[in-house]
């Protein structure tokens, strides 16, 4: 789960990191009022969960409250890479002497968090990594020991930060780490962390991503999720505990397990390639899915107008085939679907599952034994439709 800039920065501030004292506006009038309160020039910034807002004209400097209102009017409602801007952050403009990058993420290979710092702030860190990797100073953090003061010194030394700023930098890095750990974040970055003309450090832009698996212990953070920005099916899928990714084919796939869902995606793609047929989605109903989950998954697939056939591929381990069958029957009795359905049920309680499906007598349903067979039948069904 990603946080908006303003959410990330407000979270940073809770942990003691200095940020510009701006506010969020949802209307141009609010933006004007905030600019008035702030006094002096402000920056009006689109709050969207995607990059590239600067190039899209989503960040503008305003000298007066009137100008702030005008900018907010032009930015609010803007479409940036499919995301509609519904909020702007109005921040006091800072006098920037230098821009620094400071971020923490998980290094999966090293199995520990890593803090990264670069004097090339403002740029995308992945871009810096490509162009000038030696400009990034990295320190791996033992998660049991925490970020140590000497490691922060190594960062400061590495980017040749002027010594009078080291004390502030120590505090900001330590606070960012605490924020990262106590939020169960997978990314917490300040970009840029600026040196102001007044000789202070200030986090003028920020970004946080959180571990969805850890949201159970962060109800306050979970409540920050902005579902207005994402497609409705993604919200539905998440709330049903499903993993769903929209693709551009015609076969609606419902599978248990990420690996098998990927293989199903691969197989339909490969067998359908010659005819321009492929998977309409990746959908993993997870382990131990019950009837309700399966019904919810089917509803999501059926909501996609591109879907011309359904492929249900269940290999039961923790998932019991009879439960899946019950879900399928419930879903089909709720929504009437004319399209062809290919069903493959193997594994725990497969006999009971097949029995149930047979008794339900669902129209246009064929069964398959192997994955290849199931994928081929689904492709054929789309061709024949």
């Amino acid at each position, binding site marked *: 789960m990603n946080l908006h800039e303003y959410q990330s920065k407000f979270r940073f501030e809770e942990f003691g990191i200095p940020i510009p004292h701006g506010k969020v506006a949802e209307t141009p009038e609010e933006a004007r009022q905030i600019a008035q309160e702030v006094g002096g020039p402000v920056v009006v910034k689109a709050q969207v969960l995607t990059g590239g807002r600067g190039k899209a004209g989503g960040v503008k400097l305003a000298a007066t409250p009137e100008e702030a209102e005008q900018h907010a009017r032009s930015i609010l409602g803007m479409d940036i890479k499919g995301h509609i801007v519904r909020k702007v952050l109005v921040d006091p403009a800072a006098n920037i002497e230098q821009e620094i990058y400071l971020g923490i993420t*998980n290094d*999966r*290979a090293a*199995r*520990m*968090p890593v803090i990264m710092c670069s004097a090339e702030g403002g740029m995308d860190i*992945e871009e810096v990594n490509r162009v000038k990797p030696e400009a990034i100073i990295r320190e791996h953090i*033992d*998660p*049991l020991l925490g970020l140590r003061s000497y490691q922060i010194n190594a960062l400061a030394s590495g980017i040749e930060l002027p010594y009078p700023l080291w004390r502030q930098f120590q505090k900001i890095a330590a606070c960012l780490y605490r924020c990262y*750990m106590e939020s*169960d974040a*997978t990314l917490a970055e300040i970009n840029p962390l600026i040196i102001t003309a007044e000789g202070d450090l200030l986090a003028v832009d920020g970004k946080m991503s959180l*571990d969805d*698996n*850890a949201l*159970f*212990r962060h109800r306050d953070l979970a409540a920050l999720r902005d579902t207005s920005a994402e497609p409705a099916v993604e919200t539905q899928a998440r709330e049903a505990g499903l*993993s769903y*990714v929209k*693709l551009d084919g015609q076969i609606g796939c419902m*599978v*248990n*397990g*990420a*690996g*098998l*869902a*990927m*293989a199903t*995606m*691969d*197989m339909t*793609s*490969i067998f359908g390639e010659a005819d321009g047929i*492929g*998977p309409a989605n*990746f959908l*993993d109903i*997870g*382990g*131990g899915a019950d009837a309700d989950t399966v019904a919810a998954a089917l509803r999501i697939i059926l909501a996609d107008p591109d879907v011309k056939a359904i492929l249900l591929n269940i*290999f*039961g*381990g*923790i998932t019991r085939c009879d439960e899946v069958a019950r879900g399928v029957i419930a879903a089909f009795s709720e929504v009437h679907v004319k399209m062809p359905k290919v069903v493959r049920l*193997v*594994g*725990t309680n497969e006999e009971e599952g097949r029995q149930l499906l047979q008794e339900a007598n669902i129209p246009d349903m064929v069964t398959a034994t*192997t*994955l*290849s067979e199931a994928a081929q039948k689904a492709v054929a069904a789309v061709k024949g439709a």
Partner: protein
Amino acid sequence: MAILIDNNTRLLVQGMTGQQGLFHTRQMIAYGTNVVGGVTPGKGGQWVEGKPVFDTVRRAKETTGANASVIYVPAPFAADAILEAIDAGIELIVAITEHIPVLDMMRVRNVLDRSSSRLVGPNCPGLLTPGQSKVGIMPGHIAMPGPVGVVSRSGTLTYEAIYALTRRGIGQSTCVGIGGDPVNGTNFIDVLQMFEDDPDTEKVVLIGEIGGTDEQKAADFIAQHMTKPVVAFVAGRKAPEGRTMGHAGAIVEGGVGTAAEKIARFQDVGVRVAQTPEEIAELIAS
């Protein structure tokens, strides 16, 4: 002989009294696994499925002489359950639980590296040595004893591979699901080494997927240390970049971790790569 589990495995079930725990305890006992007891804090002294339940792993181990533990504890408590098993000196810990927070697993991994326990998982289907012992959630009836070792990052794809082998009349020595989480206990290389050393294993099936570089490392290991033939399958050839495919580990980031890259590395070192799950069995047979 097989690897990791066999007739000598004395298994504890952590979270035995929960819904999943109870269901799979019955399945494991039905398969013939020697389940010696369960652990559920606060339920010590009860009996479930004819097995004693304990408050703590340490007490359970002292009383039953358990040498392995399987964990069905819900995600918020699962890291603690793994640490408890490590602390009690359980030799083999199999964590089925999915959705454990990654920072929890980083802490676990840190402790694990200082211990003498082996962790398989989390977010894995467990282990199956056909005809001897089943630890986890694999459907036992699809497997049969034989000379092929199976190791996989994916749960249900493991079943596909076993299913395909069995349908062709090829049995398995041990099937190991290592799980799809980015931070876990046992990786491909660990299991490949065990199969290489196991006299009952003649050939190996490896099931990989997109994300990370574990398959590439496995390919290097195979080239340098394996004498037994390996057949691989890699899921996610058609996965779009930057979208997570079902779990945190399966994502192609900035062009790194693609299926094409992994397949090429396997082929470079002489590992044959199957195009479909069914082809796995064909390549093993040939």
